[in-house]
């Protein structure tokens, strides 16, 4: 079990789609989402703790902001306080020994069963030092997440997309509108309760 974030949160198996376990009769039926290994045993320990100078620097300066740290396949993911995110990002970008100047990816993940349902994930790289680190914050529905567009301009469209598809509002974003869907679209498709085939199929009239 690699996800050692926040022991108080619901076990991840509980929030998974409920229909999947019944579709597996031939398997030796391990309990769903149990931390057993899959049939082909991986040769590497996926959740091994790895050293990260970025994490060390963060621990030194923002130890109170770090809520949890998790490791998977050599990646370090840090769960942060929402309030200190901007400060941490500025520090990571400007600190000369880190220079995490490249925000590779920003996206939201929806966990509807949690109290704070959305996770916003930031994948940071340093082009000069080749460091990498993943940051995470958690926000509740309709609770604004701080926008990092002032730190990295590339966050602009990523945040617009997260707003569009998940409905996470970003505070301080210069131009928060829908980006992929039309302006009059109802709902946010990547939320788990949004049906894959879409709403109001019944109302569609074929001409």
């Amino acid at each position, binding site marked *: *079990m*690699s*996800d050692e974030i926040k022991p108080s949160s619901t076990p*991840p*198996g509980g*929030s*998974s*789609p409920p229909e*999947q376990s019944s579709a*597996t009769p031939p*398997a030796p039926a391990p309990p*769903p*989402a*149990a*931390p057993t*290994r*899959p*049939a*082909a045993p*991986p*040769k*590497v320990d*996926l*959740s091994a703790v790895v050293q990260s100078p970025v994490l060390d620097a963060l621990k030194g300066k923002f130890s109170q902001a770090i809520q949890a740290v998790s490791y*998977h*396949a050599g*990646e370090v*993911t840090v769960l942060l306080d929402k309030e200190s995110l901007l400060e941490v990002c500025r520090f990571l970008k400007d600190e000369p020994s880190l220079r995490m*100047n*490249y*925000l*590779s*990816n920003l*996206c939201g*993940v*929806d966990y509807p069963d949690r109290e704070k349902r959305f996770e916003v*994930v930031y*994948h940071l790289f340093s*082009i000069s030092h*080749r460091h*990498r680190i*993943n940051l995470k914050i958690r926000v509740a529905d309709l609770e604004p997440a701080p926008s990092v567009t002032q730190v*990295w*301009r*590339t966050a*602009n*469209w*990523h945040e617009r997309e997260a707003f569009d*598809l998940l409905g996470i509002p970003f505070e301080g974003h210069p131009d928060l509108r*829908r*980006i*992929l*869907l*039309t302006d009059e679209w109802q709902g946010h*498709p*990547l939320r788990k309760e*949004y049906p*894959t085939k879409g709403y109001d199929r019944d109302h569609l009239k074929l001409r």
Partner: protein
Amino acid sequence: MFRTEMMDINMGPQHPSTHGVLRLKLVLDGETVNDTDVLIGYLHRGVEKLCETKNYHMIEPYTDRLDYVAAMYENLGYVETVEKLMGITVPERAEYIRVLTAELQRIASHLVWLGTHALDIGAMTVFFYCFREREIILDLFEAFCGARLTYNAYRIGGLPWDIPPGWIDRVRHFVKIFPGRQKEYETLLTKNRIWLGRTKGVGILKSEDAIDFGVTGPCLRASGVDYDIRRAHPYSVYDRFLFDIPTGENCDTYDRYLVRMEEMRQSLRILQQALDHLPAGGVMAKVPKRIKPPVGEVYHTVEGPRGELGFYIVSQGDDKPYRMRFRSPSFVNLQALPHMVKGALVADVVAVIGTLDIVLGDVDR
């Protein structure tokens, strides 16, 4: 009395040189671009949502449909991400064949870019020359996996089949003839005064801006940043090959042209080395029929022809990903467009769209 006003002009979604269904709202002062609003989403198919309902094997064909000009890379990035998520080690021969097909795909994709970019700027003939060579590559792909555009060529844990007999010789033949063909394009363009005039100093993207906008791939390297994921965070067996990373100095469209031309040559070098050292053996690791990665999440990137192709998968231990996110280079690179065309002429907008090398299937997902 005279009164001047800005003219709003809609470029696209139906426009010959927006490479699909990109729509730009340009605010023009005469022919000078004052402001640009990029409107995308005309090709949004909700692939990320669809992936949450499919098991891991079924997702791979969907990745083909994202960047349909370089589908091999979408396949590669996806299977590698799942392999990383599960900790699968892929047989060496499979890795080498993946490198072979991927680098061929890079050349094919750059050829499409060169052809359309030149066509946008008015040099029509280059387009046909490029497609002649791309045809050879597509034939190779067809022999390898049966498809010419949407390959579904890899499997999680390796390859579905080994390369067909005679394939290696055909690739060797391609590697031999391609440098001569590339000279033909360069004869038409590299020192052509009109081409120089249309591309030099156009769409300048300084290195700090490029990094800030998250621009990756040839566009970033043309801005003078030596960053190639094949070198910075080596995946597959890329750490075993000798190749140079071309970078530009002037950060303009012409440098991006030169960088991509040089990248094709470097791809040939990698191809040559991969052909020479292709190991024997199987091509598929032992992988369970039902892919059920352990709980966890990974973000894996590969260096696609357009830039950094990222895949973020959150697994809850099911046979379906809990969250699947495609970090597509076209989407991110396109963000820099308004910055690059500010104060330029309408004709430069076309050149910049071409030089960013976007694929709308990749932008809109």
